[in-house]
């Protein structure tokens, strides 16, 4: 796949269709690629990488990149295309300035999952028939591929590219995922259990803002939490309330716009399952206002900027599930 992508990228650079390419750059280790913009074929040959560890969603970078001169080639995985589309819809990305090549998605590997097994000193990871052979300073370890796949891929919602100019590989379908299972499990707990669960999780938050800054739906010029004029600005959660506040409001602000790309949970250094908050909104929207997938198109009205005269009343919250 990597070779096909490199070949096509160089062709498009050569024929002048694009003047830049956004993809991933090889890191120090086998797993730490970095999103990067490549300007020449030489750079691509030297550093372009696409493998089981290239997870990062590059669509948010296109907010800035699409406003520069010339067209940029972007390699987008299926989940990234949803983010891309949503950003086009919100006039954040100039569609004409991006040449989108759809590439196959995951499942991708999450190095943190491997490390959590106590494996350290990792020098190389090879996928041999879906068994990972992990070469370390302390010998070779084996791990089934599926025990190391990224959380965002485990709950993959769609293998379909909702936008592209061309595809490398085949397009997939929207999947029947079990992505709401955990939300449902929480819904079926008692309020006290839910409260304890979330206190346990959110109290880990160090307010590094990685979730927000990586989120393709968070593209405000100035976030309310950074703006002293908003009255709710805070730099660190000095109290458990502020942890709740930040995450509730952030989830609310992206509700109806979040494509469930899973980047927030991927980047959280404290492994807080932040995607569950977004998924709760998605699940509620789907069940109360009809199925809606943000980013699936660029024209539909977001459920929070839309309404029906016969929408359910808020009392539904009081009536269902467990208190």
């Amino acid at each position, binding site marked *: 796949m990597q070779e096909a992508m490199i070949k096509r990228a160089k062709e498009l650079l050569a024929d002048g269709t694009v003047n830049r390419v956004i993809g991933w750059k090889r890191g120090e280790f086998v797993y730490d690629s970095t999103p990067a913009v490549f300007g020449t074929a030489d750079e691509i040959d030297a550093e372009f990488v696409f493998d089981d560890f290239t997870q990062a969603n590059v669509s948010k970078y296109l907010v800035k990149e699409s406003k520069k001169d010339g067209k940029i080639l972007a390699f987008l995985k299926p989940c990234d295309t949803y983010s891309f589309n949503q950003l086009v819809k919100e006039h954040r990305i100039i569609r004409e300035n991006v040449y989108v090549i759809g590439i196959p998605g995951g499942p991708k590997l999450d190095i943190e999952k491997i490390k959590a097994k106590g494996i350290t000193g990792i020098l190389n990871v090879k996928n041999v028939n879906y068994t990972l052979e992990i070469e370390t300073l302390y010998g070779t370890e084996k791990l089934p591929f599926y025990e190391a796949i990224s959380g965002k891929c485990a709950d993959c919602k769609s293998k379909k590219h909702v936008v592209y100019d061309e595809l490398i590989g085949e397009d997939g379908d929207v999947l029947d995922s079990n992505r709401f299972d955990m*939300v449902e499990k*929480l*819904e079926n707990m008692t*309020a*006290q*259990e*839910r*409260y*304890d*669960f*979330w*206190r346990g999780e959110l109290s880990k938050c160090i307010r590094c803002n990685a979730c927000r800054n990586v989120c393709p739906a968070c593209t405000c010029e100035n976030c*309310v939490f950074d703006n002293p004029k*908003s*009255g*709710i600005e805070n730099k660190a959660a*000095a*109290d*458990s*309330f*502020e942890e*709740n*506040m930040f995450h*509730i*409001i952030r*989830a*609310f602000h992206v*509700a109806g716009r979040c494509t469930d790309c899973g980047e927030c949970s991927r980047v959280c250094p404290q492994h807080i399952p932040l995607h569950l*908050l977004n998924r*709760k*909104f998605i699940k*509620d*929207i789907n069940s*109360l*206002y009809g199925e809606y997938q943000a980013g699936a198109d660029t024209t539909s009205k977001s*459920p*929070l*900027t*839309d*309404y*029906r*005269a016969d*929408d*359910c*009343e*808020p009392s*539904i*919250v*009081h009536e269902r*599930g467990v*208190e």
Partner: protein
Amino acid sequence: MQVNENFEPVIVAFCCNWCSYAGADLSGTNRLNYPANVKIIRVPCSCRVNPIFILRAFQRGADGVIICGCHPGDCHYTSGNYFTRRRITLLYSMLDFLGIERNRTRLEWVSAAEGAKFADTMNKFVEDVKKLGKNRRLEDLRCRKQ
């Protein structure tokens, strides 16, 4: 659940200017009692109520927050309360998801003619919040009164 008779909750009520605030006025005009715990903030439309305001109230020591707007279909601005209904339903559902007691929040439709409904709604809401006791799950300890 034990009800602490001495507990006087702080209740913030956001009322839209055209229906519910007028409804509240009407319950005054008709001398219909409801507890003094309820303090009303006037907003042009229920759709002006930002979820941030609701959280802010809890942070600062409110024990219950209620939003009142025109009945769906009667909004002075034609569609404001429809947006409110979606936003606030989702927000309340999220608070519930985080384990915040669901009876601390409410959204009710009260028209300018429904003075009695306004008073009833407030009586009921204050009673519900009294049963829950002090807001502990969504308060800011720094703001707790010494």
